[in-house]
């Protein structure tokens, strides 16, 4: 039988109780945030907001207490993630650390790294970025060139990372690089390093402005940058496997289908009460997709919680999530005539503009549609 069964998401009473608190907090906290800023969601950075989340115990929720975590269930954490995203909260200052970098350190980091960094992520005081992509290594991550050579003074790093979201605001980067051999060796000889962006000499961060005129991602140049030897995460040479295990966390969360949520709710606001068949049909269909995507994403959360490896399932959620998110602007355009305009006074037109211009990135970041479909095909057993 084909292997695409998803786990059944359990009903979790503690998580549902928590949902109430999170909603109340967000209601207060976001009362004056305009819809166009909510539409930024996980690219919106507000360090005060992130510290407030940390103060409530809503970051590092599943981690052990000794590392500043709260030992809560994956389902409670899921509730916090989906509620903050659905509300359009500015989660960018903690999203990567909480979702990806923290779990990587927890799994592979040294005891000293865990003690030094994890409590700060959980408190909302350390922001992370991911240094994987390079000018000549996008989908083909194993072609990475950035090198770190072991020297008496520490790791000597040379190379360039690109598209590094939030590097200019971050405290740390988890750097994927080559610690031995050449790019021709592919997966072998790659490692991950924990880079302190404030304390590492030889790093230059330059903005890349995206097509919507926003500054989220960056070029990060390493020019004989020097990091201490204990910056190594996990095993030297095991970087590829470590990164692959990280990606299941990156690919299945609610951020993979809620990116256009603010357009949906603004659309519903504009449609109001007077509507015909066509409108009901479109909104009914959007709702059904959202409900089913959410169920699958929670199914992956249940599988992660049970210690399974749902890499295939996560890829399915991300692929269909992106297709869904990207379909929303055209559906909205079919229902309401409005010119997209970032500066519009009308919330709907402004949010439409924001979503239209950000949508192309959703099937690129975190693994492109084509790469995901390749992973799914491999999971189905039709690709060597």
């Amino acid at each position, binding site marked *: 039988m084909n292997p695409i069964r998803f786990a059944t998401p359990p009903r979790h009473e503690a998580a549902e109780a928590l949902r109430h608190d999170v909603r109340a907090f967000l209601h207060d906290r976001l009362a004056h945030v305009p819809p166009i800023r909510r539409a930024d969601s996980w690219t919106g950075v507000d360090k005060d907001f992130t510290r407030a989340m940390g103060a409530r115990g809503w970051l590092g929720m599943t981690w052990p207490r000794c590392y500043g975590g709260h030992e809560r269930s994956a389902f409670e954490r899921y509730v916090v993630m989906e509620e903050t995203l659905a509300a359009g909260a500015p989660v960018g200052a903690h999203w990567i650390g909480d979702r990806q970098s923290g779990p990587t350190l927890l799994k592979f980091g040294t005891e000293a790294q865990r003690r030094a960094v994890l409590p700060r992520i959980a408190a909302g005081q350390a922001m992370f970025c991911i240094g994987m992509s390079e000018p000549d290594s996008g989908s083909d991550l194993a072609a990475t060139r950035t090198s770190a050579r072991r020297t008496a003074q520490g790791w000597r790093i040379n190379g360039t990372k690109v598209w590094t979201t939030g590097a200019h605001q971050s405290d740390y980067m988890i750097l994927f690089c080559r610690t031995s051999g050449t790019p021709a060796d592919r997966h072998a000889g790659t490692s991950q390093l924990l880079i302190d962006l404030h304390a590492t000499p030889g790093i230059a961060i330059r903005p890349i402005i995206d097509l919507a005129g926003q500054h989220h991602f960056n070029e990060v140049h390493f020019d004989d940058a020097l990091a201490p030897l204990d910056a190594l995460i996990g095993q030297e040479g095991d970087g590829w496997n470590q990164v692959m295990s990280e990606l299941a966390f990156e690919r299945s969360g609610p951020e993979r289908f809620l990116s256009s949520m603010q357009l949906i709710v603004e659309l519903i606001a504009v449609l109001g009460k007077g509507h015909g068949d066509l409108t009901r049909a479109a909104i009914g269909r959007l709702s*059904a997709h959202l409900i089913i995507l959410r169920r699958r994403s929670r199914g992956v959360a249940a599988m992660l919680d049970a210690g399974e490896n749902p890499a295939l399932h996560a890829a399915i959620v991300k692929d269909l999530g992106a297709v869904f998110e990207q379909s929303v602007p055209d559906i909205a355009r079919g229902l309401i005539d409005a010119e997209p305009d970032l500066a519009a006074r009308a919330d709907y037109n402004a949010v439409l503009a924001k979503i239209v211009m950000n949508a192309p990135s959703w099937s690129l970041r975190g693994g492109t549609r084509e790469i995901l479909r390749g992973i799914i095909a491999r999971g189905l057993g039709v690709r060597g």
Partner: protein
Amino acid sequence: MSDAAMVLGTADRLMADQCDDATVRSARRGAWPASLWNAIAQMGLPLALVPEGSGGFGLDPVDAFALARLAGRHALPLPLGETMAANQALALAGLPLAEGPAAFIPVESGLVLRDGRITGTADRVPWGATVGTLVVEYLLGGARHVARLDSGWRVAESGTNIAHMPRDRLSIDAAITATAPAQGHPLYLMGAGLRVLQIAGALDQVLDLSIAHVSDRKQFGRALATFQAIQHELARMAGEAAAAGAAAGLAAEALAEAAGDPMLSVAAARIRSAEAASVATGVAQQLHGAIGFTQEHRLHWYTSALWSWRDEYGGPHHWTQCLGAAALAVGRDGFWPFVVAA
């Protein structure tokens, strides 16, 4: 292994063995597959949704619905889900269970009770010409009631869906002996939910057949599966099959819950699974090439069933109207809580 896993495993094997080529083809020509029904009935499957105290065997309702998914997986040419739901309605109303295959007629058919007789016409009743028991839902003083009929109808017109499963028009004029207020969910919702489960099962099968086909079939000197375009289409189909699977889980859970209104969950499941059926059957037929467009190959047992089931008990128009109206009614701030509650 749990009891439920054992029941499901046994049922899966039984259906796989007995829905063989000869049986399915003769059923599609209109014969009633009596020995297949007997095997299913001997396992007690028609009672799977009946509570233990009323003659059932204590299967969790969610697992019982999984039987309907298996029926879909094997394109079972029998009214198994229908009989399960009919028996559940009877049991919950405190009426005697059906002896053999049964059909249920939802209140939407508009049958009326007058002078102790149920009368009216019911369209497209699954295996209407074969079933021995009808469970009729009707309104009495504004409340749903169910009646159990063993006779008092005739086949006004026989027909099938495009998968050659009987869908008959019955003309009913029956004196009722056994009737009681309905206790379960509305039968139309049960019908809609069963189709969601069957769609998910059939899509599991269609995906398996497609994987097998592109792995075997060679063109340009290599298996079709080695072409990236083919792999990506299979991945797309897998995503749709997974969506239908999630829809099946949602519908089963909502209908298994005795309290609460399952309507919006069923609506969402119905809309999404119907769309999955459309996309995935398109891909499957394409990947199979011309051989998939024949009666020789069994792909069409499943795709034609999917093309039928996606429109039975309300098509996308009906269900999107229903879910869309509810979503629009809660408005901007209510929308996310609405999504979470489904």
